[in-house]
């Protein structure tokens, strides 16, 4: 069954919208509202056609998701990327652009692959951790998955995931950066 836009994605966008509203960033709000309305229109018309979605509609919806991804990710980097070591005068590690770019490269490859294959996965949170690493974190009604991307490129990526209510799908792995993408994609396909 093809699901173009899930409730999860819509919810996460609305939450982000509220957050941006608090920050009074009207340019961002307008951009998000436009994206949301476009997605809802597509969702409604897709539902009407009972799952029979044209190829062009499908690729246009996927392109919208990819645009939203870029917008969301930019927001996550604000105030964080570029902080140098000892930014808190307590010896905390900074957040360098290389770690950020590796994190986003990985996430983009995972999401775009799944979306292109019509697998409905929301955009996760991408947040800094006190050791200079970044966490990619999904929490949906179906699964939870955390990836930790360390600042040291030699150090493996850690991941832990669970399908809610299905202990047999639990995954706990430390893997070379280059291999993580395929591990995550396969696991996410498997639990659908």
């Amino acid at each position, binding site marked *: 069954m093809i699901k173009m836009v899930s409730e999860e994605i819509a919810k*996460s966008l609305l*939450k*982000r919208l509220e*957050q941006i509203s*608090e920050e009074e960033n009207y340019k961002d709000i307008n951009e998000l509202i436009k994206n949301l309305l476009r997605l809802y229109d597509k969702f409604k018309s897709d539902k009407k056609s009972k799952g029979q979605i044209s190829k062009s509609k499908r690729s246009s919806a996927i392109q919208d998701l990819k645009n939203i991804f870029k917008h969301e990710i930019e*927001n*996550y980097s*604000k*105030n*964080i990327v570029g*902080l140098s070591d000892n*930014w*808190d*005068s*307590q*010896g*905390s590690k900074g957040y360098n652009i290389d770690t950020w770019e590796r994190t986003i490269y990985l996430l983009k490859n995972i999401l775009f692959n799944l979306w292109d294959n019509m697998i409905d996965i929301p955009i996760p*949170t991408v*947040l*800094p*951790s*006190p*050791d200079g*690493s*970044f*966490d990619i*974190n999904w*929490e949906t009604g179906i699964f*939870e998955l*955390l*990836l*930790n991307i360390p600042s040291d490129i030699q*150090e493996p990526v*850690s*991941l*832990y995931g669970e399908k809610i209510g299905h202990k047999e799908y639990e995954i*706990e792995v*430390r893997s070379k950066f280059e291999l993580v993408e395929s591990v995550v994609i396969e696991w996410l396909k498997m639990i659908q």
Partner: protein
Amino acid sequence: MAKDDPVNWEIEPIENFLNAHFLYRGIHRIFWINWRDLTKIEPNLFAVPKPGEEGLSTDWSKYAAPQDTLDRLRIPDLKTNGIIALNVGQLRTIITINKLPLNIMHDPIRISTEILQVNRAHTLIIGMNKQNKAKIKRNLAKIANWADGYKPIHH
């Protein structure tokens, strides 16, 4: 009283940590400023201890209130720092259910250093390392809450 002199503070055994007790920890805004929802604790707050640290530093509610934890921070202001609370009973539950190699260790600071002040409440959560961190971060986030009245102010 001699007993109140920090040099006489004893390390208390694990059984003195009651299930109703809490462990408090200050969280800088850098870690929550970009959350989608401030009421939903994200795992990014937790990390493997820095080199030279034995575990995750917290304050034990037997000897500290959330305000004490806040006051010990460099900027004791809810616009900059929030205070999370981990319930000891819930911590024991997730340790048991998920077979986590975590322990609570009382670690009173008897002499102040450049980074740590004298603190009888100081307690470490030990056992998180590079191998198990993703699972532990996820589980700690599940039981963490902002201490009552110490949810940070997003501005």
